[in-house]
């Protein structure tokens, strides 16, 4: 297990790329090629199958695009600017964290859990977005009470860690701190939890680890409703942080009340044949 204080190298920021040159980045499972040709940018990317790959490699200069089978996009531009900008972003849909083992929050308890979600990477040139791609493409899932009403989300298996010191540190994942308070008289079973990731800001701590804005969920006494609060800034546990990217979809209110089913659910049974 990697130590909590192990620094994670930063892969984002400005990169000057003169014409007829390019660069490659390996950010976790994502391999990215960017080449600056005459009046155009070429971007190619490929994903490996390992979602837990947290390696980072900046291989530097690229003389031509790879010959291997890579999906390449070309972006023509009349701008002569040679500055490339890479920016980490939160996922573009909510992420349903599925607990590896059933996790119960006992009545009257307040706990703090840590979950991680893959980040997206936005590539910009001349202040314009070229691509906005995941560092790892999570599987799609449906979150809803039935197959008619619900929302399309990404899924992620989570260990639901309670101790931040044993959190694996990966360059392509952002950690979300979730405070859960169960005021009801029965245990709260955390089986599938929908994290509204697009509504959260992204921060980086001193060690280079990415964090999202933290969340608080308070289950009401009657057990059916939950008050959700988007806390200001990153969690205190992250220490000093700086803002990396704003939320994709800002929410007008930081506190809202939702039916508990809209945030967490038991695993649905598949419809019969």
């Amino acid at each position: 297990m990697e130590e909590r204080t192990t620094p994670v190298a930063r892969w984002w920021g400005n990169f000057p790329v003169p014409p007829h040159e390019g660069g490659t980045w390996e950010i976790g499972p994502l391999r990215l090629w960017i080449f600056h040709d005459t009046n155009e940018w070429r971007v190619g990317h490929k994903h490996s199958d390992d979602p837990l790959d947290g390696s980072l490699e900046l291989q530097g200069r690229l003389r031509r695009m790879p010959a291997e089978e890579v999906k390449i996009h070309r972006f023509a531009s009349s701008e002569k600017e040679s500055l490339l900008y890479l920016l980490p972003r939160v996922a573009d849909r909510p992420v349903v964290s599925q607990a590896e083992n059933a996790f119960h929050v006992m009545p009257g308890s307040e706990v703090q859990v840590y979950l991680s979600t893959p980040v997206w990477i936005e590539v910009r040139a001349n202040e314009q977005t070229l691509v906005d791609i995941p560092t790892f493409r999570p599987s799609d899932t449906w979150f809803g009470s039935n197959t008619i009403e619900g929302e399309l989300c990404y899924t992620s298996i989570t260990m639901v860690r309670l101790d931040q010191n044993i959190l694996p540190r990966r360059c392509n994942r952002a950690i979300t701190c979730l405070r859960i308070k169960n005021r009801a008289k029965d245990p709260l079973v955390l089986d599938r939890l929908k994290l509204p990731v697009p509504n959260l800001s992204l921060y980086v701590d001193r060690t280079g680890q990415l964090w999202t804005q933290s969340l608080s969920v308070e289950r009401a006494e009657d057990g059916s409703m939950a008050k959700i609060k988007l806390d200001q800034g990153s969690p205190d546990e992250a220490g000093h942080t700086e803002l990396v990217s704003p939320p994709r979809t800002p929410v007008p209110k930081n506190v809202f009340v939702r039916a508990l089913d809209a945030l967490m659910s038991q695993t649905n049974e598949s419809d019969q044949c």
Partner: protein
Amino acid sequence: MLGFPLQSTSFFVSDLLSWENLIVLAKSLFVLGLGLIIAKLFTEAIGSAIKRRSSPQQNMVVRRISYYTLAALAAASALTELGIDLSVLLGAAGLFTVALGFASRTSASNLISGLFLIGEQSFVVSDIIICDGHTGEVISIDLLSVKLKTFDNRYVRVPNEKLLSSSIVNLSRFPIRRADLHLRVDYDENLEEIKDVLISLSNRNPVCLAEPEPLFLIKGFGEYGVDIQFSIWTTQTNYITARNQIQAEITKAFADGTIPLPKLHKLVVSDPLENDA
């Protein structure tokens, strides 16, 4: 034989083509033309005004009712300009309507069915539906018929009456959809292992939904092996991709032996009488 002399007819035509009558006719045509232009402009304006608050079908119906009502008023005004008494015309139209009603009862049935269809909203423009043996995208819902564009780019017109009286399958109604795949394995295979292989194929594919979970169903015991249904869920937009990718993965699993191919059992019995002959 004509009932009046040719000379009288020429008088009648010359009377009709008199300068005064031509002016009346021009005024009447002007009123009709202006009325139709106003009807068109008003219809476009009302269509734009309700665009955000109505579905495409509702918008279309409101626009058509508006246009035809205004066009009828313009025609009535034009006839009044010509000096034709509308009350007499309406009286004659009553009889004519009865005759027309008998002659066009299919059209009337389609028209009424169209209104029911629009009210029921079983499908909207751009939905994919299966109806009367045709699968295609709805390109327009009109008062008499629904027009489909099939996937091989054919134009299909389905009368509303038929749509109302038969079942319609709307493939686009819900955002997610299940794809059913059928395969057969030998009786001596471990079905639990095959289930694990299939579920892991689905889990590895990002466009197959994790929830609702894939379904593994033993359909029955066939002549040549156990029939299995494996169903995955995916979004409407990824349906073909997911289905093809999973089928390709299953084929690969058959090829590399992860899922054993069912053996073909064929028993050949020779006829001894034929051999003797």
